[in-house]
């Protein structure tokens, strides 16, 4: 029996590897083509398309790296992505804080208005946006890209942040109030630091969204000054359409920042993008927790990180490191708004 299963396992494993390597070939070939193609010259690309470069030419990569336009576009992309992220996260956090922790008339209506924004594909608005930006003379200005991108990022960011802020126990706020902190100080000094993991998630979403954005920059940025990398790549290809090797080097270098980011923040990126994509449907019960299931290698609320929010853990005593005064707390105060605990928070927390 043991021999049999050993052989069966070997057979099975071989099957796995064959399938996995087939898929690897499918995924890796185009990227290797770009990477290696950039080291060839055009004659090699024609006559030795499949082999390794021989000899290796580094001049295409060197040319691109010495190209001021490339660096300017890279800088523009970085600047626009960071500015978009900062604006959308700051604005969304403030309003999500109000939605999560204040009672006032019209709150749900206002929230619905924002949430309804999820239903507008960006392409629906791009034409009128263009006309509006033209009227405000914001064409060819980075703000013409940053502000609409931030605005379209608001719904998802608000939904995610609000559901996280709601999980933070009311006692934390009470304690802060007793210690004399107003809403601003509570928001800046307590709520935001406590929400670092979810802020990271929504920031990743905004960064990646802006970095990849093409349609809006295409219509807004017709002058080269502020053009971003995706526009740059398509233009470079138009300019050097006969010099394939050069374009491949440019393509490869344009992909590199995302690849490096992925290498360093792989967990954040995977969990952020998948939870973001599914969150967009408000399907938080199903896929969200599944996505986070065992993919997350780091546990929520690691001790010592100062994140006092016991994420999905239920035991009330083990999670949050509560501020002082817990002797006076009464159990029924733990969650405002009553009702069963509905949303599990399931963000990457590492």
């Amino acid at each position, binding site marked *: 029996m043991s021999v049999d299963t050993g052989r069966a396992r070997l057979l099975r494993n071989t099957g*796995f590897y064959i*399938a*996995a390597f087939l*898929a*690897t070939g499918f*995924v*890796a070939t*185009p990227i290797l*083509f770009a990477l290696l193609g950039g080291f060839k010259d055009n004659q090699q690309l024609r006559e030795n*398309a*499949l082999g390794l470069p021989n000899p290796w030419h580094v001049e295409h990569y060197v040319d691109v790296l010495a190209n001021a336009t490339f660096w300017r576009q890279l800088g523009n992309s970085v600047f626009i992505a960071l500015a978009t992220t900062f604006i959308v996260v700051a*604005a969304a956090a*403030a*309003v999500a*804080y109000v939605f999560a922790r204040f009672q006032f008339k019209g709150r*749900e209506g*206002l929230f619905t*208005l924002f949430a309804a924004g999820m*239903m*507008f*594909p960006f*392409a*629906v608005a791009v*034409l*009128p*946006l*263009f006309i*509006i930006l033209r009227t405000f003379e914001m064409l060819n200005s980075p703000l013409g890209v940053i502000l609409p991108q931030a*605005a*379209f990022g608001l719904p998802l960011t608000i939904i995610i942040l609000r559901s996280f802020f709601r999980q933070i126990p009311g006692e934390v706020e009470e304690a802060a109030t007793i210690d004399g902190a107003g809403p601003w100080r509570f928001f800046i000094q307590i709520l935001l630091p406590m929400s670092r993991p979810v802020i990271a998630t929504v920031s990743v979403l905004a960064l990646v969204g802006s*970095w*990849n954005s*093409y349609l809006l920059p295409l219509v807004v940025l017709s002058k080269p000054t502020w053009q971003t*990398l*995706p526009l740059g790549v398509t233009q470079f*290809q138009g300019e050097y359409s006969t010099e*394939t090797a050069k374009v491949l080097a440019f*393509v490869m270098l344009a*992909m590199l920042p*995302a*690849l490096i980011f992925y290498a360093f923040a792989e967990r954040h*990126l*995977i969990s952020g*993008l*998948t939870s973001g*994509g*599914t969150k967009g*449907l*408000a399907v*938080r*019960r*199903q*896929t969200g927790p*599944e*996505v986070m*299931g*065992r*993919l997350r290698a780091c546990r929520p609320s690691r001790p010592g990180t100062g994140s006092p929010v016991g994420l999905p853990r239920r035991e009330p005593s083990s999670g949050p490191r509560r501020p002082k005064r817990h002797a006076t707390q009464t159990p029924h105060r733990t969650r405002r708004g009553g009702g069963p605990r*509905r*949303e599990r928070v399931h963000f990457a927390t590492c």
Partner: protein
Amino acid sequence: MAAFIAPALILFLLFVIVPVLFAAYTSFFDWNGLGGIPTDFVGLENFQALIADEVFLGDLWRIGLITMLSVAVQLPMAFGLAMLLHQRFPGRTAFRLLFFVPYILTEAVTAVLFGLIFSPRRGFADAVLAGLGFDGRVGWLSDRGLVLFVIFGILTWKFFGFHMILYLAGRQNIPEELYEAARVDGATSKQLFRHITLPLMGPTIRITVFLSVIGTVQLFDLVYVLTKGGPYHASETLAITMYDQGFVRNQIGYASALSIAMFLISLLFALIYQRYVLSRDLQGSLTSTDGGRS
């Protein structure tokens, strides 16, 4: 408190709500986009023209085709690989990381890369075919019958990793105890798959189908950079038709009608799908106001 709400609200009204309302308004006008606001009211004419427009109808057909191909090919492939990577074998983490790479790349950049791969001037794809002994001169992107399938191949390359991760997470969320119990009862691995894995993966599968359709409806960057919708509209998408009418031909009214049609199609699909397909899975829906209470 107003200070907390105001920035987001102003941003949102100015750059989301106003443009969408403006698009809805403009869709009832004949307008070339010049001079202030549209004045030439034409009622529903733009929409009437739309449903008689072969390009628009073609867009819908292409959405349907790509969706069907995705459900028939891309999603099963992602599912199979997810099941594979769920098994323990050395190196599976590396495979998982690798398969997600295409998803993080910029669509426009990906399109440039594949434009070179499928280039008519002795592109890489032709060279591969030649290396395999075939006559390597295929009009990958210029053949009207082929271009959509090539684009579908690229979409599969780009997006299967995303679906795979969702499936993998769904599979990992199924408690192993269920399998153990069934095995004790003598279930075969086929039965395990049929009666445990598949039903419990249901919600995840339904969501990936949903995401796939919505993504297809809004497709722009990749196809626009690759083919501009050509040859002769053979690969055109709704968003490309809108872009072409609005930004190239200055038919702002007509393009607005297209935008509204795109919005209504996504919305209608979302509502119907949520009502009839996801209803079992969802506690809240797109339209629920309170994050799933109802």
